[in-house]
């Protein structure tokens, strides 16, 4: 199966999710806040993984914010997504973004309950 069988696409999330992810990025001035990720890409990667593992995809709504492509290489995940993207005729980035959006939704819900984002891996 060659790469021509699906489009790589780009990754991005809604502003709301972006804001959520930003709130999860580590800030040494706010150690008491639950900010477990070193960067927004790391937070995005966690949100994608969470959405993927939970099988929760969600369409982006409103404006979206692009995630830096150099730091998040979509092809690293093609092995687990290609059948799906081929089947759905979707770009790899698009699928990842939907999963990330879904993950953000889960995180948001979790955080809103006062729970830790990292607790979701359990």
């Amino acid at each position, binding site marked *: 199966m060659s790469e021509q069988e699906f489009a790589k696409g780009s990754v991005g999330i809604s502003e709301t999710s972006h804001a959520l992810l930003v709130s999860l990025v580590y800030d*040494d001035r706010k150690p008491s806040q*639950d900010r*477990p990720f070193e960067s927004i890409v790391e937070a995005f990667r966690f949100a994608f993984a969470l959405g993927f*593992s939970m099988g929760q995809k969600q369409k982006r709504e409103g404006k979206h914010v692009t995630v830096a492509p150099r730091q998040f290489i979509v092809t690293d995940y093609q092995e*687990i997504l290609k059948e799906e993207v081929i089947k759905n005729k979707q770009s790899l980035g698009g699928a990842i973004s939907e999963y990330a959006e879904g993950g953000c939704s889960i995180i948001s819900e979790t955080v809103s309950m006062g729970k*830790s984002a990292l607790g979701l*891996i359990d």
Partner: protein
Amino acid sequence: MVGEGEILMNSTAYEEDSTQEMSVVLFAEGKRGAIEITRTARSITTFARSDKEMEMSLDVKIGEEPIKTGPEGQEAIESFFPKELERFFFIDGEALEEYTEMMRTSALEGLKEEVNSVLGIPALLRGEEDLTRIRRSIKSKIDSATRADIISSKALDDLNRQRDVLKSKIRMSDGLKNKLETVMNKLDDTKEQMQAHKELAPIVEELKVIKAQIELKKVYLKEVAAEKMNESKIAWKVLLWKKSQQQHDALLEIQTRANLRDNSMQQHKDSIRELEILLKETGDLCPECKQPHPEIEKYRAGKQQELDERNSILARLEEETPMSRDELTMKLGALKMFKPQDDSAERILRANDKWKKLANDIASLEETYRRLDAQLTEEAKANVEELGERKGRQEAMVTKRESEWRNAQDDVNRAELEVRRLERMTGKSSSNKEDHELDNIISSLVVAVKDTITSYREQARKNVEKRASEVFAKLNNAPEVYTGIKVDKDFKTAILNSNGKAARKPSSGAVSIMTMSVIDALRHVSGLDLPVFLDTPGRSLDEYHKSKLLEYFWQTEGQQFLIFAHSGEYAVKETVNQFEGRLARAYTITLPRDHRSCYQPKCLSEDVEHDSYNKKNTCNACGFEWDLTSQKTLVLEVPL
């Protein structure tokens, strides 16, 4: 009184006293009145055999003064008659040669003290010695002071500088002490003010503790948050792996099966090749023993069947077309990227829990802090906090000031030690103007005394020489040969001849007369008005000189002169007759056996009967009897 087997105690005491005792009483007249000197010797044993067994006592009565005894009595005697002078007033004729020898030779040194005494010099000498001693003491003090002055001069400069340093240090120390006291006073004020808020103090104190705990935990929280962040870097893998692990395991299964198929195909290929070789090479003979075998055909048929089966299986295996090995490897590799370590999830969760617990602790403390903080009004809190901070600042300042003051005190102590050291160096100078003036005065006095002594001795020497020469000229029997006496500065004497030079070998009589002349001159020059006692004066003199001697000494004016002569020197009767007009008293000392006539003063009869058998004489005129064996001395006055 007693000794060498001789009995010197008078016979009465010796014979009659149970405890032998004898006294000599001397009466005299002096400027201070009548003098009565009593010396008593008392035996302390039944029969004393040495002076050690005699007890001596002395009683002296001078004028109206109380009687003095013992050493005090001796002192009283010496107050008008120095002991050193006895040689010049108690002249022993038997020892005249000794005097002569002392005056003629260097042995005069032995006479020097006496000469000085006669001349009244000892007082001056003692005065000079005293002055010299005093001056030496002052001089020593001045010399020491002068040496010390040199040292102390520099030390004084240093001392003045050091005193300035000390003053400066003391000022600094005082200043720091004042500052310390000021801060301590302020601290006391602060503590008093804090007393007004003492009910709030525990809360404030707890708040401070909680705040400190929060601060501490927050620092730790940063570390824990960073640790959580590091651990969470692979949290996405944990999530992805949950889902991709199945896919990965399936591919792994495929890979395992592919590996098994390859192995199986290879085994089949190897078996087919062996079977084909076997069938080709095997004819009618057994392939094992190479001998004809009845079952060989059956054997070959079986091998052919086995070959066919293997070919069939191989064909079937080859017909299976799984993904290529490379593709499988790539897929597995891609999926393995998502595989976390076995304990990754556990570590992430543990770090997260740690952070969460700490964050909760902090939140709890902050909540407590807020609750306590709410109990304080802003004003009270501000006051208490301000007072607390102020107290802390002031306590720190007190500590600082105390340290500064202690250091300053140490500086002061060191400076004081240095000042004291320099003071000791400068303090060695104790000279003053009075010392120098006193030294000058004493120096002048010493010089004056020395000059006086020298002058007096010289004058005395001249007077002695003149007087002795005059006396000598009167007494010696060859005035044309022996013209005078020379007395040198050491009071050594020599008889001068007609040429004015020392006579080489003067006669012994001339020498004796010279000695008597010099002694008389010394006594005369001394000015002491005391009687002269001359014991056996004519012992070494010829008749001429003996006569001249009495002629000179027994003059109608001058000192009282007592001569104790024995019968061989001077005949009593002739002598008394010759000098009758110059004599005050004359006595004879005899024993009873010496008298052939009655010696009773009122009798004096020569009509005496001698009893040789009974050894006694009896005066027929008065009937007086005397024992010729008696040792009792008789002192009889010679009528003049």
